[in-house]
């Protein structure tokens, strides 16, 4: 569970700083959701999704949301640049790196739920 998240975003010239910060916050939360919670689970026999609902397709909630610090690295000389995907995609990578930093195990699958992390620890040879 992430405790604190720091995002340094460079996207040239910010057009609206409040919107930009909100976009970054949202991207981080959804990146956490993607990396730690969300899993489209398919039944191998019927080809149907077994969790097409809010109960079992898990989304990050308040307890998954860490303290988020946003740093905007302003470079107005570059002009406006997109901020749609950047906050979300590297977030998952950052979380995987954090898990490695904490456990010594690289987790290669998402979401990084207890079963997946335990498997990675076992493969590393360090499960306790």
């Amino acid at each position: 569970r992430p405790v604190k998240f720091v995002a340094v975003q460079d996207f040239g010239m910010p057009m609206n700083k409040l919107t930009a910060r909100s976009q970054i916050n949202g991207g981080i939360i959804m990146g956490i959701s993607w990396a730690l919670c969300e899993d489209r689970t398919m039944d191998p026999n019927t080809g149907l999704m077994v969790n097409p609902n809010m109960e079992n397709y898990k989304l990050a909630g308040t307890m998954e949301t860490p303290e988020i610090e946003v740093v905007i690295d302003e470079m107005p000389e570059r002009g406006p640049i997109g901020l749609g995907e950047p906050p979300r995609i590297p977030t998952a990578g950052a979380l995987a790196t954090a898990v490695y930093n904490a456990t010594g195990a690289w987790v290669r699958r998402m979401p990084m739920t207890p079963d997946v992390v335990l498997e990675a620890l076992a493969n590393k040879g360090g499960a306790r």
Partner: protein
Amino acid sequence: MKAFSYYNAADVKDAVAVLGDSGSDSRALAGGTDLIGEIKNRYISPDRLVNLKSIKGLDRIKYSRSQGLTLGPLATLAEVAGHEQVRVRYPALAEAAESVGSPQLRNVGTIGGNICQRPRCWYYRGEEYPCLRKGGSHCYAVSGRNKYHCIIDGGPCFIVHPSDTAPALMALGARVAITSARGEREVGLDEFFVLPSSDPTRENILGPGEIVTRISVPPPGEGQRSCYLKFKERESRDFALVGAAVVLELQGRTCRRASVVLAGVAPVPHRSTAAEKILSGQAIALAVVEKAAEAAVAGAEPMEENGYKVQLTKTILKRAVLRAAGVEV
């Protein structure tokens, strides 16, 4: 959803009379946090809902030194978790009740409903799957996706029992009163739940026209300490991956008697007599606790995707016992 009639029961006798009428498919309605979901997901369509909330006194919580705790089944989980005597004398129950769902769910969901709730198995809850529990011939979890399913006592159906309060109540030695038109019977909670090997279509012994009307917990023994721990995949709101209710009778550092009931590992709340035997009569310390944890999972039969539950069960049992005993490691 199919239209249903809504009946406000005047008292218990009235409720069980209406519920026992075999002429219509009537269901008991308490908080409705499970039942309404089942109806909306279209795998049950009752003709009539019998509202129990209109019955006076069915939500009362009483405690006395001599009688222990008496819970009306309609007491909400928030009321149980917040009740001072429950928090002080039966921490495992307060912690279990508090761990359920979310504040909104705890304000509406009842303790009776929590122990009688239906499983969360996505095949059981999936319209498309005529599974064993719904009267079909096949368990789809066996060759399907089973990361949340059971590792102990499974077969021919492999659900886990979803309740947190049931393991806590069972560990505390609770009994339930079951009322029907024919009168009242009382059973220990250990006898209330049904394994799929006996009957894969039901989780408990309630028959048509029967409702739980009382949950009784004996007064705490001398030196009784208890706790409930719950591991969730998602902290914000989730059912247990595994849970452990531990009740210890301590005399100094020695545990005279241990009661250990696990959530999330079996189709019923699972009493680990193996762990209890190892802990009873011992001073609680890391070595004996680890031995008990190993014993608890000794007969486990993991499925394709739920082997991780073996490790989680060992860890949660260990932590719960140490916490109940107040031992720091």
